[in-house]
């Protein structure tokens, strides 16, 4: 009779498997409570939906060593300031629309999704919209008729026509504006935002 050393002992490893798994699962659950609190809309990292009433911009943060979103002066979306509840409804309309139209299977959002079309995380702040004043209207037009309004960027890829209504398009723009205010720990790195008056 030989007893096997611990490192090949079945019993030892069964207990190890159980304990390690339990421990890790508990740690994950604990962290999840904390993380979900920190990313609930209205927190520091993920602003309230009414942030769409304000100008959103990017500023270099020396202590964190990357750019962070800054919430600036009032700049209501479509010229109308919304209550928290109205803002949430509008953003939610946009979020559902992005799901219903399956945006994520061409685009990435917060860097996750498909790679056929550009990332939407900072779509609101993208310099290609030209000037701040025309941006909202251009975005609505583009979403409702991406075929005619395609800018191409030297590629023949074009966004398809997804039958987006004006109401849905407004929601999507609100959703995109809100998303651009999320603190993403500096992703995408060195992003060059649209030129905005009054900042810098």
């Amino acid at each position, binding site marked *: 009779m030989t007893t096997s050393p611990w490192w090949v002992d079945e019993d030892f490893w069964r207990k190890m498997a159980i304990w390690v798994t339990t421990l890790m699962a508990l740690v994950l659950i604990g962290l999840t409570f904390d993380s979900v609190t920190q990313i609930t809309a209205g927190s520091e990292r993920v602003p309230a939906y009414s942030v769409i009433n304000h100008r959103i911009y990017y500023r270099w943060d020396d202590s964190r060593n990357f750019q962070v979103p800054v919430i600036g002066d009032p700049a209501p979306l479509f010229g109308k300031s919304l209550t928290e509840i109205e803002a949430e409804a509008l953003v939610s309309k946009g979020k559902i629309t992005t799901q219903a*139209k*399956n945006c994520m299977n061409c685009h990435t959002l917060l860097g996750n999704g498909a790679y056929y079309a550009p990332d939407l995380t900072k779509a609101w702040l*993208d310099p290609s919209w030209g000037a701040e004043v025309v941006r909202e209207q251009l975005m609505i037009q583009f979403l409702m008729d991406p075929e005619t309004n395609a800018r191409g960027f*030297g590629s023949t890829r074009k966004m*398809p026509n997804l039958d987006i209504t004006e109401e849905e398009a407004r929601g999507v723009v609100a959703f995109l504006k809100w998303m651009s205010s999320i603190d993403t720990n500096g992703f995408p790195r060195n992003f060059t935002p649209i030129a905005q008056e009054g900042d810098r």
Partner: protein
Amino acid sequence: MNARTLDSSHLTGGQKLAIKYFTVAVILFTAQILFGLISGYQYLAPEFGYNVLDFNVTRMVHINALVLWLLYGFIGGIYWLVEEESGTELVGLRLANFAFWLLTLAVTVVVLVFLFIQTGPGDMSTLWLINEGREYIEAPRWADFGIVVCMLIFFWNIAATFMKGKWSGISGVLVLDLVALAGVYLAGMVYTPNISVDQYWWWWVIHLWVEATWEVLVACIMAWGLIKTLGARRKIVTTWLYIEVAMMFGSGILGLGHHYFWIGTPEYWLSIGGFFSALEPVPLVAMVVHAVYDSGVHKFKNSNHPALAWLIAHAFGNFFGAGVWGFMHTLPQINLYTHGTQWSASHGHLAFFGAYATINIAIFYMALQKWRGNVYMSAGLEGNGWKWKWALGLLNGGVVGMTIALLISGYDQAFIERALGGATWAAYFDAQNGVWFIQGLWWRQLFGFMTAAGLIILIWDLLTIGRNEKRSIQLVGDNTAAEVTS
């Protein structure tokens, strides 16, 4: 003619059911490859299917067919082994058959709706009836419930069968793992307007499936497969399984953090995610050691050459695809630039194929062996076994080729779009229009066709292997003893 037919009287009830699952799996695999080829082609010729069968549709079918055929393969694989492993008959065969047809009906409807209705108006009805619009788990809400019902029936059947018969180390791990696998699926079923919270839970499904619960599930199948093909000793295999579970869950659960770097979640995930996910390759190395060592101990004498070859392909594919390709972009310093580029696609292809497609194919071969009446499948098959060898070579070569091609495009993209370009839309297209990037996509397409050729030969082989074989299975190792008791 004394050709061997496919004779189901060799099979137990659960095994007959498994064959049905395998059949649908192969059909979905074919659909996956077909739609992959179309999506790949749309990169090269964007007008193809424009406004009719757009990229988001073809890609959705591509990845959903993937997830589904792997799940079908796993469920089939477990129904295949449950009766032998528990030493008793499946407790609810009729119900299990019902669940199969229900699931298959649901899947058919979902795919048809994806193809022909595609998208809907921006309200909840679309999420319930047409498309949930979240990558990999696009199935609409009604189908989610159907899937959950079928999974419950499946789970109950497996657990109750083991309870009636005998438990083993493998079956204990398997059943607990299935609880977790089904549990995390629920995390993906809620709607929230908050994209950060949305993606937080979405990753619970995706990551905790492929890097935790699925890994353990295939480790169970692998353990059983090594006992079957090589006659490896159960005690050793079971001990290995426990070690792998400890290491896999020990690293993979908190490794989830590598998806929480940039979605709004707190900064502590940069260290936790980076550290634990960097450890994830360790169990995958252990698996390679395990498989190769066991095969070596048995001098590669085994009862099923194609199956063992695919099991070894699994060990290496898992190690390279998940372990090496995953490690390459898992540290936040690197992921900051590669996140959401063709790097991710490169890794996704090699990992899914290497870790999961391979082991399913191994089980298909083991099933066919028995279905043809425990036919001989060791050395010196008809035509020197050219079909399975070519299928193995073309499929693996094709996927490795695509992986490398995408990696080159991914490097180019990360460099031009992210590092130099400032990650704007213009920078994105600068990269996409680059000569090297596009070359990579052409190579991907070429290797895609190689993969497809491999699949065709694989199906041909699965349909014909052993048909003209006169010899019977060559038992090896511990399997030669009458009944193995542990």
